[in-house]
């Protein structure tokens, strides 16, 4: 799992780069020593991206010995606790928002506010808030992606439906589909978080971004009437039978075939669902995207856009090189390259980067940059503390199966809120 990039590559790079001459100024400080990077980008495409980044950074700093360790993405979530305390690398992947709070509070992440100068604060403005805790920044973002409704355009056209702009059309579309024996939405709630996506959108559309943030920050009671209104909207869909049956048995991937086979027409998901849907045979003529429509006209639209990040552990040995790497990661050229359709296939955070020609990326970029005036949330399990997220997501799943249990669920969540915050 450990890859050493140095001698051959660096030497090769030197010869090619020396010819071009222009490189010298941009990297005035010569970095040396060892740079240890732990990454959770273990899926094939992200892994190639990570390795590519290390390679290019190594070319720029030939004296630096970069050691990259890629750890399985799920295993990483528990291992990070061990290696941050016992064996800290110089750079580590993690997530923005409240997800980094335990490590910030425990003093395990380095304060990198010095990197966030005026220039960076402007180019990465969209996620500065998500990287900020206690008024300081604790890492840098490298990618994010939009959430939204991915739907079967051909099925919508077949039944004369259009992308809904409001809640009424959203529901009437669904009724038409149901009348034709097609489920409106596929979902797999086995691992819970998919249900949280629905809650995020319904709550942000019903009560707005600020309320949603207050709720995930524990400032609002779960038994509040506004929360109940969100669940009431959700219950309308559940009682219509909008979601596929037996969704508790499926993971999000296992729920994809329903959409591919035409048994369900749409999926509220992150942009990462596009790749497997395409691989399963859906062409871009069949697959399309729309932003979750407004429910309450009085609140501004807000979106979920989970951000993935790089951090420097406070126990890092080579902080100088680590800071240079973070700066390199956030540069506009690098973010353009790593987020391209044939790389991560996601959105660059740097406002000066260009977005790939992919239609979903373009739509997503537009949604997030100009059509999300309310704000950009991270995702329920990154905005809320881990414990609260777990209890709440279990409640969401239960609600989707047994909407009548709402009172019991909300009481439970409220008890948890009082204990956790």
């Amino acid at each position, binding site marked *: 799992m450990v890859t050493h990039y140095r001698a051959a590559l660096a030497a090769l790079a030197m010869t090619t780069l020396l010819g071009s001459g222009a490189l010298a100024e941009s990297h005035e400080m010569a970095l040396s020593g060892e740079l240890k990077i732990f990454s959770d980008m273990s899926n094939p495409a992200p892994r190639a991206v990570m390795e590519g980044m290390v390679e290019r950074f190594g070319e720029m700093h030939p004296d630096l010995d970069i050691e990259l360790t890629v750890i399985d993405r799920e295993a990483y979530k528990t291992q990070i606790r061990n290696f941050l305390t016992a064996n800290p690398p110089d750079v580590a992947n993690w997530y923005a928002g409240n997800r980094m709070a*335990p490590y910030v*509070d425990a003093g395990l992440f380095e304060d990198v506010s010095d990197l966030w100068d005026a220039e960076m604060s402007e180019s990465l403005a969209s996620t500065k808030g998500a990287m900020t805790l206690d008024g300081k920044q604790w890492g840098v973002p490298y990618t994010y992606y939009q959430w939204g409704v991915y739907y079967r355009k051909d099925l919508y056209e077949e039944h004369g439906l259009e992308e809904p702009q409001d809640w009424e059309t959203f529901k009437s579309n669904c009724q038409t589909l149901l009348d034709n024996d097609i489920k409106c939405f596929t979902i797999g709630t086995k691992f819970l978080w998919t249900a949280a996506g629905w809650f995020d959108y319904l709550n942000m559309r019903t009560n707005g971004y600020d309320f949603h943030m207050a709720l995930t920050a524990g400032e609002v009671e779960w038994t509040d009437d506004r929360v109940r209104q969100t669940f009431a909207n959700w219950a309308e869909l559940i009682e219509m039978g909008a979601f596929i049956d037996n969704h*508790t048995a499926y993971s999000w991937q296992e729920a994809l075939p329903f959409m591919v086979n035409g048994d369900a027409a749409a999926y509220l998901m992150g942009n990462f669902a596009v790749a497997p849907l395409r691989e399963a045979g859906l062409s871009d003529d069949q697959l399309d995207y729309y932003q979750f429509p407004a429910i309450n006209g009085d609140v501004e639209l807000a979106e979920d856009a989970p951000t993935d990040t790089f951090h420097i552990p406070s126990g890092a040995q080579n902080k100088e090189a680590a800071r240079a790497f973070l700066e390199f990661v956030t540069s506009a050229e690098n973010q353009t390259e790593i987020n391209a359709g044939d790389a991560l296939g996601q959105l660059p955070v740097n406002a000066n980067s260009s977005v790939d020609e992919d239609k979903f990326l373009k739509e997503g970029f537009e949604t997030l940059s100009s059509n999300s005036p309310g704000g950009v949330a991270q995702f329920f399990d990154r905005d809320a503390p881990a414990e609260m997220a777990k209890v709440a997501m279990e409640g969401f799943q239960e609600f989707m199966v047994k909407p009548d249990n709402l009172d019991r669920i909300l009481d439970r969540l409220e008890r948890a809120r009082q204990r956790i915050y």
Partner: protein
Amino acid sequence: MAPLPPSTADRPAPGPAPRSWWRRNQIAITPWLFLAPGILFFAVYVLIPVFQSFNVSLYEWDGLGAAEYVGLRNYEEMYWDDAFYTSLKNNVIWLVLYLLAIPMGLAIALLLNQTVTGIRIYKSLFFFPFVISQVVVGLVFSWFYDPSFGLLNVMLGWFGAGPVNVLGDERWVTYGIIAAGLWPQTAYCMILYLTGLNAVDPEQIEAGRLDNARGFRMLWHIILPQLKPATFIAFVVTIIGALRSFDLISIMTGGGPFGQSRVLSFYMFEVALSEYGFRMGYGAAIAVVLFLIMLVFITYFLWSMYREERGR
């Protein structure tokens, strides 16, 4: 008064030079020396952690920062925690139903305890589920139960019964996982009984035949008493297996739907060590409760083994 004779201890011992301390105590010490590595590791990895668990359960600790002493608050919270009672109830269901592996294993062992051509192949096939990993068992059963393409629902369809979402329905999920767990556990009990049956005394069977015992009476009065050691071991491993039922739950449902298939060991893991957990204190409190439940069985096992030893 005549002077006392000088104490013998002051006098050099007659005969050969005194034996060294080691030589004198060799017999008594040797067993302890052989036991020492075992005792050391048992203490470090089992006994001391048990007491550490007791200790941690009195703290609120996320595994990173400073631990805060909270007394019995973790236990108080457990008292109000629905998820804890669900897990406890499931543990009881596991304990009771998992014991089915013993009669089932016995039945298969009796069936296979004959000399037919190729019986070894049949025996190996029946033993097969115990050899494969629990993770594989879990995956196979997940597909078997799958509501859209699983074999179970295809078969139910032949009888006109509707699809059952076994692993996604809170009423069925625990039973579904136990059924998966019984598959390898039955094989284990079978192998225990097969070896036990080898040791059954043919003369006693002969004598029973003469007394006109056959069928069930033969089994109950002649065979089973001789299988008592095998039954005892089967009981022990099954009880322990039921209390450790972690991997199947983790693979098949991850504790869901909405936490209805959790058992105490899984809940402890989820609270203390999973992605959303890291409440070491509460996890340790659950572990303590699980330990006390196990202690009941451990005491019983030790007591009956002790009685057995003394009876000889």
